[in-house]
């Protein structure tokens, strides 16, 4: 296993208050309204940030806690499945509309994106290995391009809350994001030194994130 990941993913307990503050900031009505007023900001800025908060939360847990959650959930694949179902829901235009129209639905989004997408994804991340992670990345990239195209090419408004030009703009941003993620992920595969250290896996045999 690669020492770089181990260092990068060491416990960062000081992060928890900072995360809470960021979450609170995003939830502040003016910030929330501003981000949700445009489809692009809603989908490309606010939602990924909520996911990132969840994954950062995972890193503020202790090693034992992480191992325990992974084992209790039934392993990394179960966590990945949970994250993909939860994120799929929030990709539906109807869900987006609901989040804009109803405060309760938006609250659900603010809780589920970090806890049911970001957190499980981060916990499953390292145990997935280069192969599993690569599969998640490549899927994400091709699906971002695909969904981006759907938004660009759609002859009608997919959300009641947003206009067609905003929709097309969001689509293009998804395509740009896909290209950026692709270049970054592939570029990251190029760098690195031969492994020097091996870290101890969880009792269940999964490498700790």
């Amino acid at each position, binding site marked *: 296993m*690669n020492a770089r990941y181990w260092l990068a993913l060491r416990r960062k307990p000081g992060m928890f208050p900072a995360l809470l503050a960021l979450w609170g900031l995003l939830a502040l009505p003016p910030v929330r309204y501003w981000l949700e007023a445009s489809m692009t900001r809603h989908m490309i800025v606010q939602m990924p940030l909520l996911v990132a908060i969840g994954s950062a939360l995972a890193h503020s847990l202790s090693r034992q806690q992480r191992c325990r959650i992974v084992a209790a959930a039934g392993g990394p694949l179960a966590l990945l499945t949970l994250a993909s179902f939860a994120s799929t829901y929030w990709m539906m235009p109807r869900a987006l509309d609901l989040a804009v129209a109803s405060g309760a639905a938006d609250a659900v989004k603010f809780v589920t994106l970090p806890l049911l997408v970001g957190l499980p994804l981060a916990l499953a991340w390292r145990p997935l*290995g*280069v*192969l599993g992670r*690569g*599969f998640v990345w*490549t899927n994400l*990239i*091709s*699906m971002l*391009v*695909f969904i981006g*195209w*759907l938004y660009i*090419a*759609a*002859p009608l408004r997919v959300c009641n809350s947003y206009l067609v030009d905003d929709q097309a703009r969001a689509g293009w941003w998804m395509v740009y994001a896909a290209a950026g993620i*692709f270049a970054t992920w*592939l570029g990251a*595969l*190029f*760098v*690195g*030194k*031969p*492994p020097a250290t091996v870290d101890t896996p969880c009792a269940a045999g999964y490498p700790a994130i």
Partner: protein
Amino acid sequence: MADYNYVAPQEHATKGGVLAYLLTTAAVLLLMMLFGLVMRAEQAQLISIGANAFYQLMTLHGAGMVGIAGIAGAAIMWHFLGQYVRLSTTVLYANLALFLVGVAMAIGAVFIGNFHGAWTFLFPLPGNSMGLWSNEAAATFLAGMLVLGTGFLLFQLDIARALIATYGGLGRALGWPQLFGHDDGKAPPPTVVASAMVTVVNIVALVVGASILAMMLVNLYYPEFAIDPLLAKGMIYFFGHVFINATIYMAVIAVYEILPRYTHRPWKANKIFLLSWNCSTLMVMFIFPHHLLMDFAFPKWMLVMGHVIGYLNTFPILIVTGYGALILVYRSGIVWDMASRLLAVSMLGWAAGAMPAFIDGTIRVNYIMHNTLWVPGHFHTYLLLGMVAMVFGFMYYVTKPAAQHKDALIDRLAYWAYVVGSFGFALAFLYAGKESVARRYAEHLPAWVPYDRIGTAFATLVVGAALVFVGRFIARLAHARSAHLRAPAPLGVAA
């Protein structure tokens, strides 16, 4: 100074998974060659199956051959790369299983659903069959390609994982420290460099391929979601061209690994070798617009790029490998047997096959030659006599009973039949192309038929030779399972 002494590699048994790949290759290759022969005989008006059946066979021949070239290349890469890094057998089998599912879907789409929109599934043809096939048939074919691509993506990701686990990153696997710094003679072996290159380009190609396939699947049922046909063509050709190119870069590993065993001379990755593979890693991804030179609506810079990179990329790996093979063999005292012969001739086939592409990659020439049989002439030369010759050479090598084993007369005859047959077959295409005979025509004008007949005769020779190769491979399969010396020592060198 780099240290380039020959160290005999450890011989090892062929894994069951690799043999499963090779057996699949043998079966699919033979079947697809037969389809090819039938197509050629139809053009030669020796038989009459009709245009519909011709296009069904053409669709399966294209998809099947490209797919099986991928499987055969993957088998060679996995077999030799396994000496240097730890690969996953589960992923190896998963790829084969997904391949078979994808092929079954394609066959079903073609023979049951009557889909015959060619392996390139060029937009908007699959969704505009004018009643000849249903959307379901087209969707099954496209989904089959998606399944097949997913298998290869997993396979490549596993190679990436294994390379990173051993070398730390793909940069090191591509020999960057030696390329950009001091060549300490410790660059990764050619097999590792080639595998890293193939992994990078194939991952990019497969992701692009998956995106366009998903888009076309939606468009089939909801045509209001329009696709820009030029964009679709660019994406499809990028995917298809990179993927088929990568197959020969995988198969050439057989040359890098096996020829040194016959000549007792090392094939090391020196700076020039590394430079050429690194350059091609980039160039292979930018060369595909040479298929689009006819599409004047493409941005001009893309066409110029296709022209220039098409010229440039013809050379690095080909010359480094061809020249490398020549100096390896020259006065080495190599003992020629079926494996070493097929591998040596594959260098010739590859080089000869690249030339027509080089010529056709010139914009002025392309105006006239594009979409003529010149193009199948080009790729059948480098695929049949280059890529597939490497695969047959590998099959002979892994099943060789003993180092000193002598080949039977029938194998040697089959070798010559294969070489002469492939050249004749490809030249008949090339000559017809020069005479402006269009490609992908089921029915030919009377004036074209003589070339078709000559081509058919040579194709029969190729199929006959391939039958012998495959028969020998299956008959000697058991020998692949033991770890014995296979390459005879060069003359004048103690074994």
